[in-house]
């Protein structure tokens, strides 16, 4: 459409900001990283057996070993899931407890610059591969749920501390000033000024972490740290797909329940008591 362009319009067009360079730069880096990573797609191809296995798995998924799901024997799914829940529960509690000192000592508004040391330690703990941790604890408490508790406990320190720090650094100092003005002692300031601000959020963090830990706990069994992971692994290794699918269903149902209640409770915490 050949319309004559108004000269002042053209001027502005010429003067437009050209974010070209920055975009090309970012785009190139990302493309480079992606192409470099393509190496990792070495598609092994689908063989006869893999299709067979996939079909078996799918069939098993809709037809799990109902006995395992509905019984209450030692090796049944409900029992194992309870164990898994227990591991997650105790582990989260342990982790929360251990995180308290870490978090307080790494919050800028409490210890100032010393906080950097603390947060580095926390990062180190967080990047510690958690299977390694589990293997190390197996040397202490053998294969079994207690190992799971210890592993999750220490593992959670990383994430929980980080979130605690966010809460702590969010404390409104205004309340402390008000308490000061009314002549409160240090203890009273902590008790009435700081703790109320923290409790609701700390509990919210714990519940959130519990949710994640349930998922982690299901997996720990693969290393032998108790819970349903071991059953899953052994069932799969022996190609007992229906047993494996029962385990998976157990996980799905429990995790969905936990997620549902966790979200509900956390919402309530945030809005009221």
């Amino acid at each position, binding site marked *: 459409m050949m319309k004559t362009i108004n000269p002042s319009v053209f001027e502005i067009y010429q003067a437009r900001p050209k974010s070209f360079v920055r975009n090309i730069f970012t785009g190139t880096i990302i493309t480079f990283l*992606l192409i470099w990573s393509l*190496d*990792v797609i070495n598609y092994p191809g689908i063989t006869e057996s893999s299709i067979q296995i996939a079909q078996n798995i799918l069939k098993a998924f809709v037809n799990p070993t109902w006995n395992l799901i509905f019984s209450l024997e030692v090796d049944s799914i409900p029992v194992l899931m309870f164990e898994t829940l227990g591991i997650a529960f105790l582990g989260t509690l342990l982790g929360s407890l251990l995180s308290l000192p870490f978090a307080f000592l790494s919050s800028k508004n409490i210890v100032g610059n010393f906080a950097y040391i603390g947060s580095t330690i926390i990062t180190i703990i967080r990047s510690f591969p958690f299977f390694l941790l589990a293997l*190390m604890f197996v040397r202490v408490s053998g294969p079994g749920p207690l190992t799971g508790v210890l592993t999750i406990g220490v593992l959670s320190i990383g994430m929980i501390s980080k979130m605690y720090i966010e809460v702590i650094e969010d404390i409104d100092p205004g309340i402390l000033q008000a308490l000061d003005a009314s002549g409160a002692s240090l203890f009273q300031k902590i008790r009435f000024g700081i703790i109320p601000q923290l409790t609701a959020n700390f509990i919210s963090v714990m519940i959130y972490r519990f949710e994640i830990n349930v998922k982690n706990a*299901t997996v720990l069994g693969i290393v032998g740290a108790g819970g349903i992971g071991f059953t899953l692994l052994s069932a799969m290794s022996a190609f007992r797909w229906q047993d494996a699918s029962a385990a998976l269903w157990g*996980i799905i149902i429990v995790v*969905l329940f936990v997620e549902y209640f966790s979200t509900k409770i956390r919402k309530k915490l945030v809005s009221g008591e």
Partner: protein
Amino acid sequence: MKTLCLKISNFFSNFREKLVIRRTMTLADGTEITKPKSYTLLSSLIILFIFIYFWNLIVSSFFQRFGFQFFITRIPNFFTILNAMVSEVNFSYFERVIDPLFVTIQISILGTFIGTLIALPIAFLASQNLMKNSKFPMMIKFGLSVIRTFPTLVYALLFSFIFGYGTFIGLLATIIFTFGIISKMMYEVIETIDLGPFIAIEASGASKLVAFRTSIIPQVIGRFYSIILYNFEINLRASAILGFVGAGGIGLILNDQMSLKEYGNVSMIVLSLLVVVIIVENISRFIRGKLS
């Protein structure tokens, strides 16, 4: 099934009502104030009860079987290993770490990228405020919850039986996991934004898709980048473990060296991973700072 759940929740609410404390106070001039329901006592009791149950189940039974003394004597094991790791760091082992380390990073990069790509349209379809009268959001959100119940490792395990060992299954597992989480985070963001401009662009005759691209993406893209970077960090840590089921990366050599009790090598691996994580964290913080 639904009625069963309803019955259970009704039972609990009735039970709850009875245990909840309601205090009504009468003031000097006769007005009554009722303190709102306090759940603290009830919830603390529940937590205590649960705690005792699980403690019994797991901890006490362990002590009963093996004895507390035994446990105490074994605790040093943990620290000896830790000590060995810290003191015998074997730097020359790094040569053997580099390749698997790169694989771990590659899986994370590609997995996060592809997972995000698939997540975006799904997040669009799952947003209640964009898909007003459709059933999609509910179904998709439920589907995503189910997908999210399994950590990456479970998917990797599953795939190892279908596709065999190799980085491919690690990648696939990461993609699925990323997809599950990022979709959720994205639709949560989309559902909280201002729809005004979206309505305006729709009113100008654009399709929902075009309106989404022009009016919603600019509002959310900052937060999306944050979400993607955050997930990349999670995937990095998760990929490190994938090797355990043969899905590539440093997990495999980690497991091997651990079984061989070569703690010096183990700590080298952990150290390398740590360095990568710290670098990525700092880059990510830098980028996130620039985005806001």
